[in-house]
């Protein structure tokens, strides 16, 4: 096989696979901009994937029926707060585990690694019990506080900080800089990539939160966007166009974030893979 034919074969295979992968999402977006009858009329031909009779009606109607904007802000709010507090708490812990000497350090590190294996599903019941005892059900605390500390994030930070040269830290200490000051003014500015990586991994993760919010947001007011679209889906009358509009709307923020931090997201996935 010459290089040229190989390339051609590869391009054809890629095009077929890409179409297979993208078609469901393309249909979702296209249908969200189509009148309801058109969606079904176009179903049996390639027109299903073309934006014919373009309209915003589905969005307007869906937004009229459920408070999508409120759900969006709820999700943006608690996910952002969780991830930002997570960066602060986990980075400083990872730093101590990488660069400071204290008794029990190795034990804490081993514990953090071991705890990564505990699946959330297996502690769901007692987690609810604790949150309920704290009277946190239907408050932001329930959605945020339990998820701020994260073993995987601590580990990612620790691995990154291991590579920060000791000389920089020592010379800062000799200049009289406190450990906290050294961390904030010297280490953090050097560590943009790991912060970006942990942030986006965590964000995409929590954006999809579903099981936990079902349990702790009993009222309408704190409902997140995933729960919002799921309730809308089960709310008759069912209109495909409107459903596709809410699905598309839910996906937009995360796609924007993904394109902004794409490089770090991929780095996060792959570095975990190569090192782990």
């Amino acid at each position, binding site marked *: 096989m010459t290089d040229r034919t190989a*390339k051609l074969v*590869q391009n054809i295979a*890629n095009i077929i*696979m890409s*179409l297979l*992968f*993208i078609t*469901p*999402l393309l*249909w979702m977006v296209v249908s969200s901009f189509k009148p309801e009858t058109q969606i079904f009329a176009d*179903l*049996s031909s390639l027109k299903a994937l073309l934006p014919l009779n373009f309209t915003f009606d589905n969005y307007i109607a869906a937004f009229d029926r459920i408070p999508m904007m409120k759900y969006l802000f709820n999700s943006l709010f608690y996910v952002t707060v969780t991830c930002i507090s997570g960066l602060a*708490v*986990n980075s400083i*812990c990872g*730093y*101590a585990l990488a660069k*400071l*000497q*204290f*008794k029990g*350090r190795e034990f*804490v590190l081993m514990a*953090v690694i071991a705890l990564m*294996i505990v*699946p959330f*599903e*297996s*502690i769901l*019941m*007692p987690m*609810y*019990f*604790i949150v309920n*005892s704290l009277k946190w059900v239907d408050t932001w605390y329930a959605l945020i506080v339990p*998820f701020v*500390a994260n*073993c995987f994030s601590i580990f990612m930070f620790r691995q990154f900080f291991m590579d920060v040269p000791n000389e920089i830290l020592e010379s800062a200490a000799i200049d009289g800089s406190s*450990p*906290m000051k050294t*961390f904030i003014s010297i280490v953090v500015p050097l560590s943009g990539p790991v912060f970006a990586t942990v942030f986006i991994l965590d964000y*995409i993760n929590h*954006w999809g939160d*579903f*099981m936990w919010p079902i*349990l702790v947001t009993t009222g309408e007011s704190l409902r997140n966007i*995933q*729960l919002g*679209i*799921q309730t809308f*889906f089960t709310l008759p009358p069912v209109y495909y166009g409107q*459903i596709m509009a809410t699905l598309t709307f*839910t996906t937009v923020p*995360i796609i924007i974030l993904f394109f902004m931090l794409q490089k770090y997201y*991929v780095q996060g*996935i*792959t570095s975990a*893979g*190569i090192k*782990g």
Partner: protein
Amino acid sequence: MQTAWGANEHKNKQASLSRQKRRESVVGYTFIAPSVILLLVFLVLPFLLAVLFSFTKFNLLRPDKIQFNGLDNYMLLFQDSLFYKSLFNTLYFTVIVVPVQSAVAFMLALLVNQQLKLRNVYRIAYFSPVVTSMTVIAILWISLYNPNEGLINSALNFFGIPKQPFLRSADQAMHSIIFMSVWQAAGYQMMIFLAGLQGISKDIYEASSIDGANRFQQLRFITIPSLYNVTVFVLTITTIQAVKLFVQPYIMTNGGPENTTRTLALLIYQQGFQFRNAGYASAISVIFFLIVVVISFSMKKFFRDK
């Protein structure tokens, strides 16, 4: 005088060193304190409580009426046909999804690991389902799988294949969820394989093609062996992800039809929160945790021994 002064200085130095050490310890504990406290309260404590609860009978909303009942929950569990059914479904999903998804991911990684003009476009296509949340995907695919007016049945019809019931049929529901899950997550594993592929030195390929190796020989004797560690990692994380299967059956089938898509995670949720059997649900959780531990350890051991 001089020696005394020297000894003093030595003492001072040691004292200051140990003081510095102590100070560093204090700083260390302060730095880890927030994470450690949060992890203790929201990970270690719930874990211990799960074990404790598994020996009790109580309603989650009436914790004051908790009663110890010894091993009753476990006895009940091992006689519960629904538990075995859920366990079977969970393992069935895992055993199929893990190899299929990893193979698809590997193939995609090979496809995009070339100097093709459009390779970023292809990559984004494979990766876009990964970024989309599972709730969105599950709802979208209910519509795609619609037996009467779904896109997939329309496409099948185009090729002369009769309409399929998909999620409505006991035979097809789990396979439909498997197919969708592979589509959703293959891009993730593809990225990991891709990083592995890019780590293989190009010199090896050049040397082997000078020696007359063809593309398939290169794949068989260079690419695949070089990716051993990456493959182990991919298989391990995919397995642990797979046994947690919850959102897809919760939204798409609610465990049906005929319990063919009821998984362990779904069973925990339903027992604990719909039927309020917190003790029983905790017993399932403990078993579930043990399964995850056994799988991860045996995979580690199996692959290390090889």
